[in-house]
């Protein structure tokens, strides 16, 4: 019964992962990471249901908090570099290489 949720979670995680790989805009990339975190949340909640304890649900809350903190930091960084480069494309930031 919970398998469907798990498959959905895996799909979301994969979509997020692939999104990170294919999208250029830093904000979108970052959103894809958030999608992956939410996929994890879905998995946690599902497993909580499956295992019959509340740990998974509690964890989901923790993850949300952490994700929020990440957003704060992430946006700050992305905005700074956007101001400098006038571009939010992650491909433009490639001075450091080899």
């Amino acid at each position, binding site marked *: 019964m919970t398998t469907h949720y798990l498959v959905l979670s895996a799909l979301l995680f994969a979509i997020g992962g692939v999104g990170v790989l294919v999208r250029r805009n*830093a904000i979108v990339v970052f959103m894809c*990471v958030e999608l992956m975190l939410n*996929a994890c949340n879905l*998995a946690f909640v599902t*497993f909580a249901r499956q295992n019959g304890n509340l*740990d998974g649900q509690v964890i989901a809350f923790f993850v949300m908090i952490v994700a929020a*903190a990440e957003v704060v930091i992430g946006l700050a*960084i992305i905005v700074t570099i956007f101001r400098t*480069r006038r571009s939010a494309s992650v491909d433009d930031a490639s001075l450091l*290489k080899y």
Partner: protein
Amino acid sequence: MNGTIQAPTIEYALLAPMLVVFGAAIAGVLVEAFAPRYLRSAIHLPLTLLSLAGAFALTVWQAVKGVPTKPAAMGAVAVDGPALFIWGAILVLAFVSVMLINDEDHFVAAAAAVPGSAEEEQALYEGAAHTEIYPLVLFAVGGMLLFPASNDLLVAFVALEVMSLPLYLLCGLARRRRLLSQEAAVKYFLLGAFSSAFFLYGTALLYGYAGSIDLAQINKALGAVGGQDTLLYIGAAMLGVGLLFKIGAAPFQAWKPDVYQGSPTPITALMASGTLVAAFGALLRVFWVGLGGLDWNWRPVLYAVAILTMVVGAVLAITQTDIKRMLAYSSIAHGGFLLVGVIATGTSAAQNTSALSGILFYLVAYGVTTVGAFAVVTMVRDAGGEAWHLSRWAGLGKRSPLLAGVFAFFLLAFAGIPLTSGFFGKYAVFQAAVTGGALPLVIVGVVASAVAAFFYVRVIVLMFFSDPAADGPTVVLPSRGTAAVVAFAALATVVLGVYPQPMLDLAHSAAHSLFVR
């Protein structure tokens, strides 16, 4: 249950070192909020150093008083021998890194100002400074302390984020070459977040497998639960991705050179020493405690990762022309050597102890030397800031023999020449691995060491055997802090290289009881 929630028991005394650091960090935030601008710096530095020193003292006190044999805080945090040792190491390394950070010349005047803009000019003119750096560092250090001590995966995840988030910011705060610094921050942030998502997903799968995120519980479940092996394997792999990313093991090493190069050098020093120590602590705990019963499974995988890491680190470093990038690759290679130790577990407790104490010793030795090396890098300056390009280091031995000599000594320690700390570190790890039956890995390890020696030696060639460029870089007169860092690192490298016994004893007694379960 019955609607009554029992208050958790928290061993505050055991957690005191972390609490001190976190408390000081919060206090630092308050200072930012309320203290006048001109006072902030004067308050932050003593606050930061004192808190670190205090935390260290508490750690020592803890260790002297007796190492607890049970996890603390309802099983969430394990303050055991290895954790205490790692705490001590992280606190010392953080302390010396802060002394480097104190040299505010390294950090941007106004992070929000666009590089080269009038606002930046203005900020520079006013002598503005981001004193938030200190609380950020303290938060990061707090995370580093928690990460290796976390006894369940959720705490580990939170600790990972607490450690990483401030570092993402700090990476982008370099005063010069700001484009590079910001790029490093973005890269570090995106990849870090990406990898922590893997870590989290792995946590979720293991939770699904074992019904708990407690490491001991997971381990217990390894034998008991049947039919869900795929969940377990993929979960463990995802967890591994997150951890291996932090230590920069191949193929998750790509961020390291870019981030190390772009970050302000003192922050690089902190990352290369503190983060690495913390990440290895966590890796050991997760793999040995949480997945200890699965070692027949993860050992071959880590075997391959270790080989790849050593080879990639050593080979790619050869052609680097940027000193910080080169040190980054060197750090990757050293991560590989340390992984050799992780694999060197065995059936006997003595074997595990010797492997663990070897790794602990190696971490201290490498951490101290690497901080010293980056401290030297901060002192060799060009018109545009630090002289990163190796060609600029030509003939440094003639201009500034003492500094070049010390740096050469650090490099020899990295290369693992006897009578330096690096040698005994490598020896301890390799010895454990040979005893543990990983002889082929050790052979790859020594071959990689030989290759790695080449680029260390190349820098020495440049510094001592080449003639200096006409407009070569100048060596700035070090601030007292920087000088102290270099001196401390050099001294430690010598002492650990000539008389390593006390530190080995310490590592051994820390490792003796192994990780609590």
